[in-house]
């Protein structure tokens, strides 16, 4: 890396810089790509801070600040470091947890170092009691005294630190002794003020000085002077390493350390105030010979001048100059006019000059009405009030106009009551509400309206025709059932008084606002085609809403209240939007706010567009948490609405989830590994080492199973490790202490030394275009495939062997995965399915991190495939494909179990797909991070550790029964479930028998799947025997193959094409 070309742009840091971050930051100055990456990381940090709810909020701030320091090496404004530091420090200043926190102390020092007068700031912090227990504070503080050669004060600061028992104490002592040493040398060799100054500047000016000069020499002062040589080889020890003789230095007179009189309420606040005005960066030079007294902060000295006070008696005699000092008052000219001679009584200033009409500019309020008179400005409320008594007719008309306006695509200068009127929109809705309730409508106009509605191009047109729907509408429009909540109608109290017979019931609360609007519209215009989007959306919404009232009524209720409040009390256009947004968050998983907010923002936006956009958000629809549950009940209309709901429901979160499979995956791994659940050490008998016999290759593989096309690595496969199992069965096979113990037992890396490379350090990997060295090999890291808390997976190109590889970078190092992968390969040495399991070609290990190199599969994971299919076809995979994959998976799991290895983390994203030479699809199992090597445990060992992650927890764990091979088989079932139904498995236990909650479609092979799931979900009598299951699957496949529409080869061809075109 060529740092020498940009060294002027790098501010030195006390702790040094991280090379990777520095490299990236420097590249970001020219490359847009890196800049975007930086911004992205920054946003992540900010998000973390915003959403953090745990015990230690400082942690995130600290990390963020450190990151900024590293990533914006210029320390300029772009990093925004100072304001952040300030706000962070202020935020936690009075937090008792952090008073003596070492991180807080570091931040405080960082901040003080940037100030013009750090010593005073330190004094304030000290008297406030901030960080008085931290050694760092005293060290940093004393530096400033040392820098100007004031050893006496530096010493007293260290003494102070010792009195306060600052931690770590030994560091304080070392620093103190160093300072004493420097003082001694200072005395012995004479004070060379300039030199000292410069050196100390270098030390303290790690942060930029205002002069902008960075010291060239960065030597600590205590090292100065000859005789301080400590050379290697012919080592010379320090001669005057004697603190006692140096103490005398302090006898000299010096200014006593000033204690701040009283601690200010907020140190940061005070410091900042002091720092606030600095327009003139020029240092003040001596104006006179009188020395300028240095002001001490916190010193309450009165001002040198007298503050002027008004004198109550009349001083008219002195005229205009009365309030000034008599000596130098204002002298008025002789001919000064005493009074104005002209008459301005009817002079009016226009408050508004109308602009020429401009089609490109749309005022967001009814400008022409607000400024209707030359010298008066009407408020919005006034305008409303004026309009109100005119009643319904008016309201309807304006609403009508509004609608028309919305439908016009090019925004135009409109007559009053157009788009600009939108603040009044809701107002009017309510007005009309009242009307409607006063005059219940006959049914006919409703029908009519619905028909016109259906002309609109939007996905909801269908509801209108449905008889059920219109019935519901009808119900709502009768005032007896639904009444608006009181809060929203304060203004209209009078007119409402008689129509408000009872308190609103919570279920219907949701509907009122919108439904009323709807009904009202019906009333006003039977023949109008246009209708507001929100109004349209609502009946649909409420249709499904009604059915789910009991489920989410609380949320709905608040939402409604918000809405109503907003409508009545806020004329501002903006506010309505934001409220809508909040509500959206509050009641998650509900369509209507989306719909509601969208038109409000965008004005004339066609509905179908919104809908489309939302569909595009996610590829897979995961309905596990939905409360709608395809709405069990009735009518076509309802089903339709809930269908739509399903699609928008939780879109954002879902798509995110699915974008980060690997992250999830890794987090699960990590959670498993680091679990702190206690191990109950059951001491058992230690059986003799058991030889693992690699299973002989099956003579005839079932047709779909085939060895992968990939060449097996050139390296020799060693014999599988034979190690006697440990003498007991732990309850938790993932515990890190156990893993370490096992690694020792197999004397890791054991026989798998080929490709095992230990490195002194592993640098962090980032995707960039230039090649990086890992060990002796060169790689070009192309892109990040996935990310978790402990590791990242990259796609890379191996320049040494000219092939694409996947790089799994983990921190801390994960040796276990390497071991399991290699051991599995060794045990399956001659097995045709060996290539179906991930092999690690090279593993790099250091004491902090590890990198595993494995083959890159362009096909992606099984989950990617399922999503891709879903995206293209809008439905889950064909059954025959699922059957095919089940056979494959069961086969692979069986092979793996035969050699006594449990994967323990099987899920769709851990199967990679690739295309076999005969154009069928093969699977490869990856990620053995939580693998279990059963040969290291006594025979028939089983575990009781319960994994608490959501899906893919096997029934044994749920039941609290011991498990071993069960979990993999269960997970195969869960994976099949995902493929079959596009949703994660949901379980149900009835009479001690587990089954899935999902209903089968009628065209499915129900018998097969019932058998399949019941076998794999209920393994109470030991791990299920899969051979029968496989036979059954094979048989089904044969049957399916007979019909060309369901035949496997056709589907397979489709999938292969899908993968090839990707």
């Amino acid at each position: 890396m060529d740092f020498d070309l940009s060294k002027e742009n790098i501010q030195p840091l006390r702790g040094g810089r991280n090379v990777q971050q520095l490299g990236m930051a420097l590249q970001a100055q020219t490359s847009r790509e890196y800049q975007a990456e930086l911004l992205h990381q920054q946003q992540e940090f900010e998000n973390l801070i915003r959403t953090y709810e745990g015990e230690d909020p400082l942690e995130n701030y600290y990390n963020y600040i450190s990151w900024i320091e590293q990533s914006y090496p210029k320390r300029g404004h772009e990093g925004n470091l100072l304001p952040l530091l300030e706000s962070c420090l202020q935020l936690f200043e009075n937090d008792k947890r952090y008073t003596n926190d070492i991180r807080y102390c570091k931040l405080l020092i960082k901040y003080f170092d940037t100030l013009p007068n750090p010593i005073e700031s330190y004094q304030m912090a000290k008297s406030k009691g901030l960080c008085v227990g931290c050694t760092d504070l005293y060290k940093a503080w004393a530096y400033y005294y040392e820098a100007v050669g004031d050893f006496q004060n530096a010493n007293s600061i260290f003494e102070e630190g010792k009195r306060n028992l600052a931690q770590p104490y030994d560091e304080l002592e070392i620093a103190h002794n160093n300072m004493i040493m420097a003082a001694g040398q200072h005395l012995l060799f004479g004070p060379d003020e300039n030199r000292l100054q410069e050196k100390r500047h270098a030390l303290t000016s790690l942060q930029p000085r205002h002069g902008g000069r960075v010291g060239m020499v960065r030597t600590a002062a205590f090292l100065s002077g000859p005789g301080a040589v400590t050379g290697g080889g012919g080592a010379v020890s320090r001669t005057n390493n004697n603190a006692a003789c140096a103490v005398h230095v302090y006898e000299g007179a010096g200014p006593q350390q000033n204690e701040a009189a009283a601690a200010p309420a907020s140190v940061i606040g005070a410091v900042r105030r002091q720092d606030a005005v600095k327009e003139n960066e020029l240092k003040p030079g001596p104006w006179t010979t009188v020395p300028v007294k240095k002001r001490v902060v916190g010193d309450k000295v009165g001002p040198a001048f007298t503050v002027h006070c008004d004198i109550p008696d009349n001083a008219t005699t002195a005229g205009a100059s009365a309030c000034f000092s008599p000596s130098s008052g204002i002298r008025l000219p002789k001919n000064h006019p005493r009074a104005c001679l002209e008459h301005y009584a009817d002079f009016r200033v226009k408050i508004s000059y109308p602009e020429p009409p401009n089609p490109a500019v749309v005022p967001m309020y009814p400008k022409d009405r607000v400024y209707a008179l030359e010298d008066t400005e009407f408020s919005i409320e006034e305008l409303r009030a004026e309009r109100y008594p005119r009643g319904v007719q008016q309201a309807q008309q304006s609403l009508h106009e509004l609608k028309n306006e919305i439908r016009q695509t090019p925004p135009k200068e409109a007559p009053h009551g157009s788009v600009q009127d939108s603040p009044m929109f809701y107002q009017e809705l309510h007005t009309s509400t009242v009307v409607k309730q006063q005059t219940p409508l006959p049914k006919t106009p409703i029908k009519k309206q619905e028909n016109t509605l259906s002309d609109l191009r939007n996905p909801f047109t269908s509801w209108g025709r449905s008889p059920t729907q219109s019935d519901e509408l009808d119900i709502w429009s009768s005032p007896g059932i639904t009444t608006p909540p009181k809060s929203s109608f304060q203004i209209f109290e009078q007119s409402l008084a008689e129509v408000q017979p009872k308190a609103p019931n919570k279920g219907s609360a949701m509907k009122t606002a919108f439904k009323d609007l709807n009904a009202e519209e019906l009333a006003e215009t039977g023949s109008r085609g246009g209708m507001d989007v929100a109004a349209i959306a609502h009946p649909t919404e409420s249709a499904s809403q009604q059915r789910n009232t009991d489920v989410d009524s609380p949320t709905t209720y608040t939402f409604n209240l918000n809405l109503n409040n907003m409508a009545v009390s806020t004329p501002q256009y903006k506010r309505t939007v934001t409220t809508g947004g909040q509500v959206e968050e509050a009641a998650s998983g509900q369509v209507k706010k989306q719909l509601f907010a969208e038109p409000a923002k965008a004005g004339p936006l066609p509905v179908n567009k919104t809908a489309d956009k939302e569909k595009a958000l996610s590829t897979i629809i995961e309905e596990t948490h939905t409360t709608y549950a395809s709405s069990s009940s009735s009518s076509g209309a309802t089903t339709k609405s809930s269908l739509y709901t399903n699609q928008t429901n939780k879109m954002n979160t879902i798509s995110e989830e699915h974008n980060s499979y690997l992250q999830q995956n890794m987090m699960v791994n990590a959670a498993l590994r680091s679990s702190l659940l206690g191990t109950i050490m059951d001491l058992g008998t230690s059986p003799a080492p058991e030889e693992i016999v690699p299973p002989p290759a099956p003579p005839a593989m079932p047709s779909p199973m085939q060895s992968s096309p990939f060449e097996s690595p050139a390296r020799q496969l060693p014999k599988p490790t034979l190690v006697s199992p440990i003498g007991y069965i732990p309850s938790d096979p993932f515990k890190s202490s156990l893993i370490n113990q096992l690694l020792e037992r197999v004397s890791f890396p054991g026989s798998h030394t080929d490709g095992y490379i230990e490195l002194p350090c592993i640098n962090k990997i980032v995707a960039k275009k230039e090649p990086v060295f890992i060990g002796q090999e060169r790689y070009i890291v192309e892109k990040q495939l996935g990310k978790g808390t402990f590791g990242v997976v990259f796609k890379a190109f191996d320049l040494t062997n000219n092939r694409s590889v996947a790089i799994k970078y983990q921190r801390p190092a994960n040796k276990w995965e390497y071991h399991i992968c290699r051991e599995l390969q060794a045990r399956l040495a001659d097995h045709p399915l060996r290539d179906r399991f991930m092999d690690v070609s090279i593993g790099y290990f250091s004491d902090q991190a590890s990198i595993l190199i494995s083959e890159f599969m362009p096909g992606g994971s099984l989950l990617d495939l399922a999503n891709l299919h879903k995206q293209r076809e809008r439905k889950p995979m064909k059954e025959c494909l699922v059957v095919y994959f089940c056979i494959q998976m069961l086969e692979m799991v069986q092979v793996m179990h035969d050699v006594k290895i449990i994967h323990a983390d099987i899920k769709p994203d851990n199967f990679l797909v690739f295309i076999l030479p005969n154009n069928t699809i093969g699977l490869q199992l990856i990620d053995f991070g939580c693998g279990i090597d059963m040969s290291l445990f006594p025979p028939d060992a089983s575990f009781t550790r319960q994994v608490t992650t959501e899906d893919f927890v096997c029934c044994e764990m749920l039941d609290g029964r011991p498990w071993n091979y069960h979990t993999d088989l269960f997970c195969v079932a869960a994976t099949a479930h995902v493929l079959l139904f596009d949703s994660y498995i949901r379980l149900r236990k009835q009479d001690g028998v587990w089954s899935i909650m999902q209903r089968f479609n009628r065209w499915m092979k129900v018998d097969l799947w019932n058998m399949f799931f019941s076998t794999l979900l209920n393994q109470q009598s030991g791990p299920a025997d899969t051979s029968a299951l496989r036979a059954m699957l094979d048989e089904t496949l044969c049957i399916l193959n007979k019909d060309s529409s369901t035949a496997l080869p056709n589907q397979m061809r489709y999938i292969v094409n899908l993968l090839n075109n990707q």
Partner: protein
Amino acid sequence: MQNLKDIPRNGAKILDYGVNSILFQRGLYPPESFTADENYGLNMWMSTDNKIKEFLSTTLGQLKGWLIERTVNKVALVITNVKTLEVMERWDFNIEYEGDINAGPDQTSDKPLKQIKNEIRDVLKQIASSISYLPLLDCLCSFDIHIYTINDVNMPSGWAKSEPANVKNAQNVKMRSFSTSIHKMETMVTYKNVD
């Protein structure tokens, strides 16, 4: 054209410059104990402290011999904390041999001297600019020189075998390398990254 005799001397000389400028830049010894020495178009700071001079001249003198014999593959300058003996920083100079292995001491290089000098200057410049990202050494530090040789080398008196000096929580930065078409030297610094 130069012959091999010059090159190893160059190699040792370059190391001398390199070590001195590191000692100066990293502030291991007080700056007034260095004097400027113009070379390769740069101001080199050379230590005037007798003990350092003596130590370096014996070490590098030995190194010179080994370079001719082609037995050295790495020279490391290790900076340790005097109090805790912790390794703070390590500067590696990896040496590779190019050209004909059996050519003997009369081997010549046809790379222009000017180009070699330019390359050397760039490396020394990089060393000087490293202070912008290296951490501040705010403790008493000393240095040592480790020479990595191939196995069958007789150890002269005054030398001892040592453990490899590994830096904890290490960051490392590779610098440019230069080559005289007989030797190729690659510089790398490894340092401790705090927090």
